[in-house]
């Protein structure tokens, strides 16, 4: 338990453009323990989605991208792995849920077929019937009662909320140790989003899956995560336990974010700077948020 499941150290990323290098990440340090739900919160362009993509190795073939830093997953250096090694992790050890469930599912295959493919990545010898049984079982877990109909449907025949549940089931069916959730359900209605997030939280707790939850929505993060990293322009500015961050934000940027969120209790919206020198202040780490064994 002492070593984190995922440990990202001093991650930097830049892109070569015709105006020189454009830096996206300025040395991120992130760790996630087994079974922990960690949120990475930031605005558009902060580098939060890019971080998830790096973990999945999606920029590896891009010659214009420059990396540095270590990514340690389960004691293995993810950043040094070959494409094949990484590929064998994906879908099995690490899985992912994206923003728009309907477009993340393949429109030309039935849900059942896609489930089968996902199960085959973990167990290439699995029979169709066995796969079907597991799929039905998992669809029940995400509160889909008419699993047979869903497995025989295409993604476009189902509602957004239904597709999101299917995505959650597919992401968890191989019992990954890490789930990357990039703005899950942002494309859905608020009520549907609330339901699916509750479901997802229950399931990952049950299965002891660690989650890196990427979002811009502070309210959603507060309800989902154990621990929070706030990211601003490629720098982590504050991290700590969720209630510490929300009840007692310390970094000027976090404070501005919190103040800017409109409240359902009213009170108007204060005048807040959308940019400020103080947002670049050094990181604030709440007690209990630091790395185990790390001197702080």
């Amino acid at each position, binding site marked *: 338990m002492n070593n984190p499941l995922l440990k990202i150290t001093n991650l930097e990323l830049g892109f070569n453009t015709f105006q020189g290098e454009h830096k996206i990440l300025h040395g991120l340090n992130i760790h996630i323990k087994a079974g922990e739900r960690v949120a990475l919160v930031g*605005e*558009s362009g902060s580098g939060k989605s890019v971080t998830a993509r790096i973990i999945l190795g999606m920029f590896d073939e891009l010659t214009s991208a420059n990396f540095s830093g270590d990514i340690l997953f389960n004691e293995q250096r993810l950043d040094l792995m070959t494409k094949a090694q990484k590929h064998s992790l994906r879908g099995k050890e690490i899985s992912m849920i994206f923003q728009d469930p309907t477009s993340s599912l393949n429109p030309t295959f039935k849900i059942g077929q896609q489930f089968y493919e996902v199960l085959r990545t973990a167990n290439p010898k699995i029979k169709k019937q066995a796969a079907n049984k597991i799929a039905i079982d998992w669809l029940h877990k995400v509160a889909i009662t008419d699993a047979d109909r869903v497995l025989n449907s295409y993604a476009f025949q189902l509602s957004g909320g239904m597709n999101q549940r299917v995505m959650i089931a597919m992401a968890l069916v191989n019992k990954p140790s890490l789930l990357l959730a990039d703005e899950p359900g942002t494309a859905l*209605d*608020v*009520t549907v*989003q*609330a339901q699916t997030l509750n479901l997802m939280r229950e399931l990952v707790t049950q299965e002891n899956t660690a989650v890196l939850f990427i979002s*811009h*929505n*502070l*309210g*959603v993060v*507060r*309800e989902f995560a154990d621990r929070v990293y706030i990211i601003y322009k490629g720098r982590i500015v504050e991290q700590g336990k969720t209630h510490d961050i*929300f*009840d007692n934000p310390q970094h000027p940027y976090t404070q*501005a*974010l*919190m*103040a*800017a*969120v*409109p*409240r*359902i*209790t*009213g*009170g*108007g*919206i*204060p*005048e*807040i*700077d*959308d940019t400020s020198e103080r947002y670049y202040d050094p990181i604030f780490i709440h007690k209990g948020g630091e790395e185990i064994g790390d001197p702080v």
Partner: protein
Amino acid sequence: MNNTILFAKNINKVFGKGKDTVQALSDVTFGLQQGECLAIVGESGSGKSTIANVILGIFPPTSGEITFLNEKLLPERSLMLKKQIQFVQQNPLSALNPKKTIGASIKLALDVHNIGDKSDRGQIIDTLLLEVGLPIEFKHRLPAALSGGQRQRVSIARALACEPKIIVLDEPTSALDVLVQARILNLLNKLRKERGISYIFITHDLAVVRNIANNVCVFNQGKIVEYATTDVIFNNPKQQYTRQLISAIPVIDKSEQILRNKLSEAHNAQF
């Protein structure tokens, strides 16, 4: 109701023909006062965008009528009426022509409605840009050189250029980051007070509504479920659906949590 500027009466809208029809709006009635911000709230498919399009005259209602200052709005609107009801869209990226400078986009409104002398129009554009909080130099820039929030300010300036009585705002901040959203909402509030314009604010975000609207229409499946002042909607909603919507909002502080719990208890008590 003596200050009513726009009144929608028994609006119905049916899409499609024969068997495949969808009733997008049924029997929608509401009024808009001078200087009021009326929020139209609902989830996807609730009809909130349809009512916006009907008010803007993009398509006519199947039945029912809209009156603007006691004048009935017909399917083919005069230039004078078009000028009075303007629009700010959700996506600031697509709302501005990528090949035209900011200045040219705003100038279109002045040219079409013949506002100000030709020689003064540059001056008017400068004033509008300053009013929405943008530097004057921006008029020479293309939209690609602006951030999302800045583009949304340009869209607002363009709507103001027509000197309208009403602006329909379709999710004007939902594509923006929360810090930028706060600034745009404040700008909208300021403009409404200074110019006495009325807003029809269409959104799915109830937390935003709480802080900007005077009255709220909650839409569900093409019908108005609840129509009341913002205070009543949030503190003492009459309808179960409204409570359900508010209970689903993710909140960030304790007093919000208390309010939400209170409403969802009331919601559960109904069963």
